[in-house]
């Protein structure tokens, strides 16, 4: 149990440290790469919680897909060498206020709730269980997700595709 705790805390430390780097780094490229370690850390936590499928998906989609996309977007953005465009802290006073508020609520929830803790985690492969659920209990939501993706796909195409007849090119930003 002791070693389990240590590993979880190591992952948590990685997440917090890299997330801080994402937020505070003055260079957008550094931020994007720091995000890589955040995603890895989260995947590690999933593994420790015996959510093996979720961990794999986390790596595949977030690290393999979204992060690569973000880095591409960052690299294709012009004036990337300008450090100025990176995240400067705006309105620290208001930000601190919001931070304290959210922290208070979350800490309140964490400490006031009587969590029903199960003593020992049972390790088992979850992929088959998830597949079973997706085709039985969650069949309909699963199908609706595909409609949702269709709408998103088409919407994105509508927004970004080249100007068609009658549209002035000046207005679009």
């Amino acid at each position, binding site marked *: 149990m002791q070693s389990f705790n240590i590993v979880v805390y190591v992952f948590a430390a990685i997440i917090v440290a890299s997330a801080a780097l994402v937020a505070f780094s003055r260079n957008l490229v550094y931020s994007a790469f720091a995000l890589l370690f955040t995603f890895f850390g989260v995947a590690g936590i999933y593994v420790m919680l015996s959510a093996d499928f979720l961990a794999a998906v986390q790596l595949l989609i977030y690290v393999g897909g979204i992060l690569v996309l973000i880095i591409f977007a960052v690299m294709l953005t012009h004036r990337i060498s300008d450090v100025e465009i990176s995240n400067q802290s705006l309105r620290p006073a208001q930000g601190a206020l919001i931070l304290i508020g959210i922290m208070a609520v979350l800490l309140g929830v964490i400490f006031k709730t009587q969590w029903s803790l199960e003593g020992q985690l049972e390790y088992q492969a979850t992929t088959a269980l998830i597949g079973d659920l997706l085709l039985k209990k969650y069949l309909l939501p699963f199908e609706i997700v595909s409609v949702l993706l269709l709408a998103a796909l088409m919407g994105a195409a*509508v927004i970004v595709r080249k100007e068609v007849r009658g549209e002035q090119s000046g207005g679009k930003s």
Partner: protein
Amino acid sequence: MEFTLPAIKIGAIAPELILVCSAAGLMMLDAFAKERGKTLLPILSIVGLALAMVASLKLWGKSEVTFAGMVAVDSYRVFFNIIFIIGALLTVLLSMNYTPREEIDRGEYYVLVLLATVGMMVMAAGTDLIMIFLGLELLSISVYVLAGFARGQLKSNEAALKYFLLGAFASGFLLYGMALVYGAVGSTNLAMIAETLATPHLPARVLLMVGVGLLVVGFGFKVAIVPFHMWTPDVYEGAPTSITAFMAVGVKAAAFAGFARVFIGALGALHPDWTMVLWVLAVATMTVGNLAAITQSNIKRMLAYSSIAHAGYVLVGMVAGNEVGRASMLFYLLAYTFMQAGAFGVVIMLGQKGEPRLNITDYAGVGHKYPLIGVAMAIFMFSLGGIPPTAGFVGKFYLFGAAIKAGYVWLVILGVINSAISIYYYLRVTVVMYMHEEGEEVLAVSRAPAVALALILTSVATLGLGIFPSWIWEPVQKTVNLLLG
């Protein structure tokens, strides 16, 4: 692992299936048809919507939960389906002449309208938090794109971006709230949630309360209640007017459908806890919406603030929480669909390409030059203001009556005061139309037979609901039994 397919009742999701199929068909038609075939798109959408309406009506009076507790087949859902389909039909009618005029007549427009309607239906039918969230996302993503459909116009770009950014935030709040509720209760199924909450001892009360609070924020944004209304005027003003009408009637009704099923149904045991919050929000929404509407000079912005105020009136019914309250919410949302879509129809009718003149003062002399349009607009304005014999009056009467019955006298007093305030700015439009000297020239009417048809339908319905409310009120009272799954 042995695998048995679950029982699939196609009939239970027939309306949604029909609309998804028509949307897919329209997409294919748009991709492969020649120019002439594309003129069929709006007509085919109307056919699809009409079929979905028939399929919905077939579900009337049933009472069961299918798809492993995901979908309710109850009259509540059917009634909301009717509202959504009417809203979508009116939107298509309003768009038929509007989109060519604004040169945004691309096929995806109707596909997205249909998909958004599917999202609304899923929201109203869902008996699981997952379903409600997916419905909301399907609806929202389609409408984000529709709001920015006039890509050549900066205002439309701004509307889409604002709606998307704030909407994504709101979805985040909603999802976080759902996650916390799931954490506290141990299920996303509404019936299971209600069952767990009915037990006296709740171990994770704080967690639950924070989750419910986040749910209020998420739903509050989607129905545009104060203080989560900031996006409404800009988005309503910038979006294409036909889509503004769609947002004002369909999106709002859908959000209320999910809101009410979750709060009155699943979280009914917590009624004393969330009622006070909604009480305050209802008063704030009515007051801010009406006071801000008074100062508006742009008619689309004025109608946007008015739609905020109307969300406040509907909240009164939710606060009441009794059976009459639920029924009156449904009645009011239906009445509101007609009058608000009609008002936007008049705006479209009197607009030119690019809609350069949207000031209320531009409507001077319209009443004399185009008597029929003047009369129609007057009916919608009277109805929105709640003057008899219109649907708006009857709707408010039921809503406030329900709240009185539940003992919320002060809420009703504030609501009535607000209603009186709102008459000022609704009547101002009528006064400008009939009594002001026309300025340089009276607005020209665009040739739009489909819009004219929509105006006739909505004004007849607005008056009809006002004069014969019992035709709808009787069936509506049967819809109040929410199924939870």
